[in-house]
């Protein structure tokens, strides 16, 4: 099964856009045959990624800009690319905190990694700031063939 773009959403990088992003990712996952639980986990991972763009990519630097969320289906499951137009960051500096240290915040990157099978920052195309690739594989029995 070749890669197939299910949807690409471009929204302002603001807190109010997160509901829209969640709705889009959830619908795409359900259309690909995912269960509600599987869809929830991918939705949460993408929400955390976009939240970090809103708070750190744009917010920390007083910038504003768009977030593009693109959902692709392939034979194994779904991949979501989150692209921002903020200052490129060194992925090595983005790390989850130690969970033993109980304090508010610092969970986003940890959740993104825990909820997905792939979580990698890709080389951004010219003009973009950062591109994060999040993939999650479906259980074996939902993988074969086209979407349901």
């Amino acid at each position, binding site marked *: 099964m070749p890669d197939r773009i299910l949807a690409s959403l471009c929204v302002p990088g603001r807190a109010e856009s997160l*509901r829209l992003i969640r709705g889009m990712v959830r619908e795409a996952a359900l259309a690909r045959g995912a269960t509600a639980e599987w869809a929830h986990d991918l939705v949460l991972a993408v929400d955390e990624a976009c939240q970090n763009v809103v708070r750190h990519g744009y917010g920390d630097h007083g910038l504003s800009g768009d977030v593009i969320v693109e959902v692709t289906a392939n034979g194994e499951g779904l991949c979501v690319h989150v692209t921002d137009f903020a200052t490129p960051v060194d992925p090595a500096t983005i790390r989850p905190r130690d969970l033993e240290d109980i304090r508010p915040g610092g969970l986003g990157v940890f*959740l993104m990694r*825990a909820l997905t099978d792939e979580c990698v920052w890709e080389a951004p195309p010219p003009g973009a700031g950062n591109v994060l690739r999040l993939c999650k594989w479906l259980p074996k029995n939902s993988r074969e063939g086209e979407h349901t």
Partner: protein
Amino acid sequence: MSVSVSNRGGAHIVTLAGEIDLQTSPQVRDAVLDSLRQGGAVVIDMGGISYIDSSGVASLVEGFQVARRQGVAFILAAVSPAAMRVLQLARLDKVFAFQPDVDTALAEGI
């Protein structure tokens, strides 16, 4: 998302419903910290929460820490499976005090 606060048997009940995310979690934080500021135990009724992200969890962790410092009970009641999943992933299921519903929380938790 909706937040409402009520008082029962000297405890503050913070009732949350809907989706708690980066946009709505500041309201949760305000309600939790306001209740703690007034003194007494706080019970969070999470039965109506359909979604919670790390910013919502952060508001709860902040409440938990303030309550511990004040020596009052801070209880999560009626936590849905979706919310519990997030708390488990964050390994907070061993940190918070849970009760199946508000009545039990008031009778046994505080």
